[in-house]
């Protein structure tokens, strides 16, 4: 009724499809070290005299979970907003599948295949799970909503994500637990063929069981071939799911590398002081090199 029905009709048919380059064990072309799904090149963002970000160079490969850690005010939110198209970086560029892209609006990001699951999740509590997952992309049949196909699509998406704790997908989202709500929000992103899913503090304010649900959801997303960028304060969670860790400190990338190069103490050092003497490659104050941090980081 409001948007083009036939266009929407085709979309969720391949909703559960596994994006190319799936599987963390054998990354496809998109997941290769040479052309990561998304490469941030020397991203800087200033608001008037305030330099919120400077010289961020970071690869986000497909099929991997990249954790973005940092204290309050380190620039995590600013960075994900630049990736999500809400803000335009002042300097630097985003390289998507090896091609420089300029995102002028969140819609540009969505069209590329970048979906952001914000902390508030943006779910309508009065609508049920199916209605929320397909909100804005409803399927129609003879001009009317095709509830059956929408329910099947939502069911399949949740099954792909291994979300099994909901008893009926026709229950209002307001009745769900925090972890389940997160799952619905992620299913929404997956349904839009998002190749990169950004999750902002997904485990904040969740209990132990719910956190576990969300963490396995994140692992599942990566194993389906999606790139996942998780912003988190919670180092336990970061070490539990991340393949790669990037630490921001005062708008600069303090360190980035595979999880094995870090431990909790070194990440805490990096988050609080921007440097750590305890990094596993032992280089002291300079960021842990993994091929991503160039001299541009100082710019």
């Amino acid at each position, binding site marked *: *009724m*409001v*948007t083009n*029905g036939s266009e929407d009709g085709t979309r969720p048919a391949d909703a559960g499809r596994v994006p190319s380059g799936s599987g963390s064990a054998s990354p496809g072309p998109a997941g290769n070290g040479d052309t990561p799904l998304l490469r941030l090149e020397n991203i800087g963002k200033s608001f008037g005299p305030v330099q919120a970000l400077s010289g961020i160079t970071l690869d986000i490969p497909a099929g991997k979970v990249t954790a973005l850690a940092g204290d309050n005010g380190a620039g995590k*939110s600013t960075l994900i*907003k630049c990736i999500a198209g809400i803000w335009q970086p002042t300097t630097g560029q985003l390289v998507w599948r090896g091609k420089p892209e300029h995102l002028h609006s*969140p*819609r540009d990001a969505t069209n590329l295949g970048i979906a952001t699951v*914000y*902390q*508030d*999740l*943006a*779910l*309508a*509590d*009065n*609508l*049920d799970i199916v*209605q*929320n997952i397909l*909100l*804005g*992309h*409803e399927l*129609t049949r003879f*001009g*009317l*909503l095709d509830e*059956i196909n929408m*329910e*099947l699509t939502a069911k399949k998406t949740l099954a792909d994500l291994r979300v099994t*704790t*909901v*008893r*009926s997908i*026709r*229950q*209002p*989202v*307001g*009745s*769900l*637990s*925090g*972890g*389940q*709500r997160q799952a619905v929000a992620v299913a929404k992103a997956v349904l839009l063929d998002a190749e990169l899913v950004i999750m*902002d*503090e997904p485990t904040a*304010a*969740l*209990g*132990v*069981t*719910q956190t576990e649900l969300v963490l396995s959801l994140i692992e599942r997303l990566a194993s389906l071939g999606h790139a996942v960028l998780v912003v988190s304060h919670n180092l336990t969670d970061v070490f539990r799911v991340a393949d790669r860790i990037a630490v921001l400190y005062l708008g600069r990338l303090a360190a980035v590398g595979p999880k094995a190069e870090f431990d909790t103490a070194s990440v805490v050092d990096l988050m609080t002081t921007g440097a750590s003497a305890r990094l596993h490659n032992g280089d002291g104050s300079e960021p842990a090199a993994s091929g991503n941090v160039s001299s541009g980081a100082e710019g």
Partner: protein
Amino acid sequence: MSSPEADETGKDQPGSVTVAGEAEATEAPDASAIAATAAPEVMAGSLGEYARLWLRRVRSGESGALPVIAGLIVIGAYFQIREPAFLSAGNIANLMTQAGFLITFCMAQTFPLLLGEIDLSLGFNAAIGATITLWMVAIAHPFPTWLAILAGIAVCAAIAAIEGLIIVWLRIPSFVVTLAGLLGLNGVLLWLFEQTGGVGLGGVIQDHNGFINGLVSSNVSPTAGWIILIVAIALAAVFMILRDQRRRRNGLVAPPLSVTLLKLAAAAAVGVALVLVLNHNRSSGVIPLEGVPWVVPIVLVLTVLLSVLLGRTKFGRYMYAVGGNAEAARRAGINLSRIRVLAFAALGVIAGITGILYASFLGSISNNIAGGQYVLYSVAGAVIGGVSLFGGRGRITGAVLGGFVVAVIYNGVILLGLGAAGQYIWTAAVLLAAVILDALARRGATVT
């Protein structure tokens, strides 16, 4: 970016499962708590299970239409005991004609309420539409009736859409914009009557148009009444059973056949009783007066059309989404302004129909219509019928039931000779009772 308030409200919903901290102990959140909030239609496999789920849902505060129907029975019983003529054929026919425009007023008000908005100017808007329609058919060389009706409805839709545009463009609360509408349209109505010259002499335009006059008070012939009832029930049966079959074929849960048949039987019973009573000759004179007033099938058709619009179209879905969480709707790519303006335009169309039904009921339209009072009745009826003032919750059938409650009180109080005082106090009491019941049920749900 992150808004903790939005998350908080989510946790406050009835039957929500605690998310924070140590309260979380079990793997799957309490299954019964979740079952309580999902519609039994999509959970139950058998009649027994359906009844159990439904009871649990009622206890958890999701009582649906139950309180309204129970209230209706209580109020009806009271009036019947006090005045045995209440359930006579003559009075029931009377009640139906009175209920028609009150119910459509409530339907119209449901649209802004679902968005969390309100339209205070509804009553005078409807009156302006009716004035234009009656004026067009009352002049010396009258316009065709259909054109006059369309013009009246179009004017109402345009006025409401303009209010919607002001709300959206200038981001002024609908309360204020339509409050200005309430005052301004009253003025426009008076001005309009001044322009009608001889037609609106003394502030009243008489309705001599047979078609418009007959919309409410003329009757369907007794045979046609039965045919309409049978066709309606048969259509509902075919539709419901085919839909359930299609769901089962696709491996989805559908209500058990026994439940569907029970629902159809209940609807058929009410329909048969109504047609039986109304087909009685209720005339004391020579000319027989029998049959269902036309307004009943008109309201029925409107109910079905608007239920489809709200429940089965993208526009309806988006209205619930905008009313439930505007930010979520915006991020889903829904054009909020467009939905709001369209909702107001839809409201205007229903208001236009209401105005014509009102004029048909009275046989005239006057420039001292109680436009403000009807607005308040429309809000009261919608809220009694379970439409939330905060948006996102409520159905057209609820508005119909709520409007019917208001009409029953209106009718019964006149019958008892209690006058305006009794009518206001009764309506207020029922409105309060409905809201209190709802609040108590929800509080009970969040405590347990």
